[in-house]
């Protein structure tokens, strides 16, 4: 009797336990999009840096907002959703509300064509933009893109999530490169060089995808990665400590790093970034 019950129970319960493990496993395993979205610098940081070095707002370097309906494949839509979201952030940082609304409209069109329009709370974004509440606006837009990422991942479209992030990153690198061409700034040159770190995180993930669109994108970024590998970073480890200043606990960081940039290598990076971006937005 025991044997019968055991046999009956063991089959069913083992199946249950296995299923349980699969679900827990799936929950524990982060998607590539989620990994990237956690690690990649926000395009807003680069836009703020551009503004901080004293560069004037330059609409001419942004992707034309009226091209939004021209992207036909899901791949190109997701890439350019990333591009437009960076352009939206750039316009918002400079408080160019008219342009920001145009780019918000482009984001909306592409998002709707990808079936993710429901995640964008236009009325709230508009209200926050009009109130010039930048922190709340950035919070809202960040959450929006987290929801979109979540949607792609939950619907087996992790690839589109990665593509969206790559589009956003390339656009922010491109904007920084274009400004660096016009305005000599060591700060901008260093920040462009530091994107080597982002590429190092990005490339192993991109290489996992074997469809033609992804392979083309990976091949383009591999060229860029090759140029970046020529940059040398000297790193010296120092002692770190902490101190409390006005109720804030601060890290006192005594590590140092210096990036050695050959002007010719930097020029190649600027040009190659421009070519990749041109292919993305065409």
């Amino acid at each position: 009797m025991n044997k019968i019950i055991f046999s009956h129970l063991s089959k069913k319960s083992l199946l249950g336990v296995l299923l349980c493990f699969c679900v827990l496993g799936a929950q524990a395993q982060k998607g590539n999009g989620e990994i990237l979205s956690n690690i990649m610098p926000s395009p807003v940081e680069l836009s703020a840096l551009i503004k901080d070095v004293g560069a004037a707002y330059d609409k001419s370097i942004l992707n034309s907002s009226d091209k939004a309906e021209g992207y036909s494949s899901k791949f190109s839509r997701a890439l350019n959703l990333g591009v437009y979201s960076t352009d939206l952030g750039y316009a918002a940082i400079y408080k160019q509300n008219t342009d920001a609304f145009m780019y918000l409209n482009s984001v909306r069109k592409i998002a709707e064509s990808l079936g993710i329009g429901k995640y964008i709370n236009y009325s709230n974004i508009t209200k926050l933009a009009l109130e010039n509440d930048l922190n709340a606006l950035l919070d809202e837009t960040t959450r929006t893109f987290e929801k979109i990422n979540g949607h792609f991942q939950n619907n087996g479209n992790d690839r589109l999530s990665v593509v969206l992030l790559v589009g956003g990153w390339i656009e922010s690198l491109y904007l920084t490169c274009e400004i660096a061409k016009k305005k000599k700034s060591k700060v901008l040159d260093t920040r462009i060089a530091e994107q080597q770190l982002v590429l190092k995180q990005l490339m192993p993930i991109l290489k996992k995808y074997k469809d033609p669109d992804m392979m083309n994108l990976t091949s383009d970024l591999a060229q860029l990665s090759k140029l970046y590998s020529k940059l040398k970073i000297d790193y010296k480890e120092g002692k770190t400590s902490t101190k409390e200043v006005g109720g804030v606990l601060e890290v006192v960081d005594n590590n140092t790093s210096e990036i050695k940039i050959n002007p010719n290598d930097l020029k190649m990076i600027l040009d190659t970034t421009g070519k990749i971006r041109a292919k993305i937005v065409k």
Partner: protein
Amino acid sequence: MMRRLLWGILFFVSLYSQTAFAQKCNIKQFKDKCITALQRQRGYTFLKSYPLDGQGGVKKKIKYSYILSRGTAYILTMANRRADAKGISVTISTSSGKTLLNSYDENKKKFHSTIGFNPKVTGVYYFTFEFQNTRNFCAASVLGFKRR
């Protein structure tokens, strides 16, 4: 064998119940507190928010990572349902595993809710949030930045 199997099933059922029926963690109110704390630090702009849902105690530590850039000052604010954010701490470490800071001061038994960091090296950094000496497993954190 049969008994072991039944205990095993019971264990998974109880684990599932603990997760499923854990008090729902409403992050938004804590994130808003973090943004308010961020705005008190002059010149900082919102960058990212980190939901800290410990699922009723199932998860004691929650780890995030981010590329922090040299030349930028970062502020990390944390909030839970207590005014002083007691019970939630963060450890900042480098990609090589070196710990730079722990926001819980063991000697003073003090939880710092606002952390400042001006990295001298651009790199991947890890934020490991931990619920400590608390039954309150719901919190949020916000990362802000400004140019130095």
